[in-house]
């Protein structure tokens, strides 16, 4: 973790009319670091993720991102073209519902290859080879490359979505409840896979989740949100083992122990 942070949030605030989305969130994220944002439903997690990824305009504060050329820019001042370029090269976004992040009408290979074609790849054989490599990396049988995602199970769709996002070697991936809606054994496998990929590729990631187990497994640092505010931040193990805030204590103690 060298030099400048990759992403900096400075007192990011969002109001929906008079209702609070989130308020005064600030943190720095360095390359290769995974930050988990936890909190109950309605605590402003998803709002924060949209603000950080430039999909929503904050009411106050700003979000800075260090581009590949090492210039730090305010993501709000990016043009639409630059923002889109960022989204298909340097960033990834993994949705909770894979259908939102995938093109359900085209094959898995085309889904993975889309970003490559968008950045100018024009050699079918190479695009397909790359897609095959990535399917294998996310443990999808390469013989299913021509199947549409509609023929995939929920877990496979989620893995396909991850492959589609990682194919251009992004430096930062936003994940919104990546394991939501999957059964426990599939979740475990997906988490294992994601942990491996994040470590191998040196990815930075911001993972929004309500599942503390996901945070524990994937993240280095954690940010606990309640009612739109960050009430506690720190190293994941530290926060989960020794929560300071009463709300965090409640969260930790409400994990079911089988």
């Amino acid at each position, binding site marked *: 973790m060298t030099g400048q942070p990759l992403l900096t949030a400075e007192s990011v605030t969002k109001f929906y009319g008079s209702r609070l989305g989130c308020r005064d969130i600030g943190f720095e994220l360095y390359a290769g670091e995974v930050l988990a944002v936890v909190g109950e439903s309605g605590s402003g997690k998803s709002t924060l993720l949209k603000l950080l990824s430039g999909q929503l305009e904050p009411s106050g504060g700003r979000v800075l991102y260090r581009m590949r050329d090492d210039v730090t820019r305010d993501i709000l001042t990016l043009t639409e*073209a630059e923002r*889109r370029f960022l989204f*298909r090269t340097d960033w990834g976004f993994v949705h909770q519902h894979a259908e939102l992040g995938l093109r359900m009408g085209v094959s898995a290979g*085309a889904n993975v290859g*889309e970003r490559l074609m968008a950045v100018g790849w024009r*050699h*079918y054989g190479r695009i397909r080879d790359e897609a095959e490599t990535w399917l294998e990396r996310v443990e999808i049988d390469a013989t299913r490359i021509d199947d549409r995602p509609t023929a995939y199970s929920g877990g496979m769709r989620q893995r396909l979505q991850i492959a589609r996002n990682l194919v251009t070697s992004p430096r930062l991936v936003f994940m919104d409840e990546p394991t939501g809606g999957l059964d426990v054994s599939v979740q475990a496998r997906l988490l294992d896979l994601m942990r491996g990929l994040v470590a191998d590729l040196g990815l930075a990631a911001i993972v929004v989740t309500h599942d503390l187990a996901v945070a524990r497994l994937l993240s280095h640092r954690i940010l606990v949100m309640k009612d739109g505010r960050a009430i506690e931040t720190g190293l994941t193990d530290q926060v989960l083992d020794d929560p300071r805030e009463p709300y965090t204590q409640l969260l930790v103690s409400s994990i079911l122990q089988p």
Partner: protein
Amino acid sequence: MNAMISTATPSTAYNFAYLDEQTKRMIRRAILKAIAIPGYQVPFASREMPMPYGWGTGGVQVTAAILGANDRLKVIDQGADDTTNAVSIRKFFEKTSGVATTTLTADATIIQTRHRIPEKELTETQVLVYQVPIPEPLRFLEPRETETRVMHALEDYGLMHVKLYEDIATHGHIATTYAYPVKVEGRYVMDPSPTPKFDNPKMDDCAALQLFGAGREKRIYAVPPHTSVVSLDFEDHPFEATKFDHACALCAATHTYLDEVITDDAGGRMFVCSDTDHCEERRAEGHRGDLLGEAPAAIAGSAA
């Protein structure tokens, strides 16, 4: 059918070429903008025409807007001068404008076409008007109009190759044979209307002005003379125009786009030029196909 040049008396009940002058001015402005930005789809206030959508209402409005009293109009439908769509649109303009009409490609100043480009090379004194059903090449990949417009604006065309990728993955080759996407002057990706991809190379550096009218979708776009039109492809799967294993059964041409015609209910078939005028001209020059003289008059026409 005999090649003919005819002049009809216009009906005085209509303004010249049916549309009122204000509407024509509006369409001409759209056309000028389209010519200024090759391949860009210009929205225009498409009018109700006395024919259903899908019958060429866009092409008819463009033709009406550029038609002058001294023009000679040719109308083709899938290359033929004598099919329903061509005949009715030609009659429409004979009745409402009284301009001369012709079936000879070389004689025409304006050629309105449904889905073909004439075989004979066009000249700078001619205008080719296409009837377009769906002008947006990205439509079947991205249903949102707001999104496709942004994609055009930002030259965000990766998605177009996703379609071609999908073709190769499914069929082993690019199986799109009509409405094959092209890039105009290195900038806008354009749907060349459902012309067969056989015709795509003719659009490149064409001497004639090419205008595209989509009535239902309310869009006009254009390819000015001598503009580059490149068919999209992959490096390892380059664009290939359709090739035929047959020669035309009537005029023996091997370089033209052929229609397959079923001749009986026992598997009989023949391949003939889709461009009827070109075929007749070749027969008049003495070219003789295998079935010339045997083919039914309905297919061969009176020139057989």
